[in-house]
């Protein structure tokens, strides 16, 4: 897993470089990095949630389907959110609590896709003494097709 090895798994490292709630500017784009989605990464994600459908694993089967080849599960954006952002992205701040989200799916991600992300904080607010940030995200493939778009709410660490 070359991608996983290059990835900094200690989220405390660089924590001081990440924006706290006060510094997050709604509307300001987040830094993102292109990511090449591999068959290995898809298979590891599938294993983690028990996905067994052949459309993710069996090339010959996948060719007979509407998609004409292997695809990733729609929820692969769970991985893409971290693989398309740098180590100082505030989504990695230890203690960030996911409070809910909605995702819309257009074309599937496929092994070999070079995936880019356009993302920003859209809003921030305080509710019951908790600091919230709304983030919005759109993932594209190398052809410029939208893979999926999503909006989420996180409670920021204090």
């Amino acid at each position, binding site marked *: *897993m070359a991608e*996983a090895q290059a*990835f900094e*798994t*200690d*989220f*405390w490292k660089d924590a001081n470089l990440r924006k706290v709630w006060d510094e997050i500017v709604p509307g300001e784009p987040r830094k993102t990095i292109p990511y090449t989605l591999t068959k290995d*990464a898809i298979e*590891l*994600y599938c*294993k*983690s*949630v*028990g*996905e067994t*459908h052949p*459309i993710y694993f069996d090339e010959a089967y996948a060719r*007979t*389907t*509407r998609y004409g080849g292997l695809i990733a*599960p*729609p*929820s692969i954006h*769970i*991985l893409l*959110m*971290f*693989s398309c952002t740098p180590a100082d992205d505030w989504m*990695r701040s*230890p*203690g*960030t*609590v*996911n*409070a*809910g*989200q*909605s*995702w*819309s*799916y257009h074309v599937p991600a496929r092994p070999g896709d070079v995936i880019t992300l356009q993302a920003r904080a859209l809003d921030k607010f305080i509710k019951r*003494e*908790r600091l919230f940030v709304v983030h919005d995200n759109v993932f594209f493939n190398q052809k410029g097709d939208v893979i999926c778009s999503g909006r989420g709410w996180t*409670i920021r*660490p*204090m």
Partner: protein
Amino acid sequence: MTTTFEKLKAGDAIDGPAFAVSRESIRLFCDASLDYNPLHLDDEYMKGNFGKTNFGGIIMHGMNNFGLISRMITDWAYPAGAIHRRLETRWVKPVRPGDTIQPSGIIKAKQVTEKSRWVLIDVVVKNQTGEKVATGEALVEFPRDLFCQ
């Protein structure tokens, strides 16, 4: 029996897979999602308070619920030639190692639009004691050019 848009009706149920949560399953989800937030890894850190909340130990990624619901929806949709188009979720209770969780869905409504056909599904994930840990809503498209798999 193959699901078809015509046969579906409000109240029809969808059963999802049971999923045993362990420290190992959470660690695997860290590696698969690259989400290494200490909420899911660090017992010492989790002894502390989060505002008014104390989790008392590591918790499963909320997005693991999301992945299970998505798996249930796609496994249901693919054989019918249908396409998973949207999922909205929120977390109700934390999930811990030792819990067994299971998603399920209930058809809420059908909608025909100018170009396609849609099914709204209420989704829920419950733990081994029947408590809701996650709730949400999914939207599945049943295109007229059915391509069953």
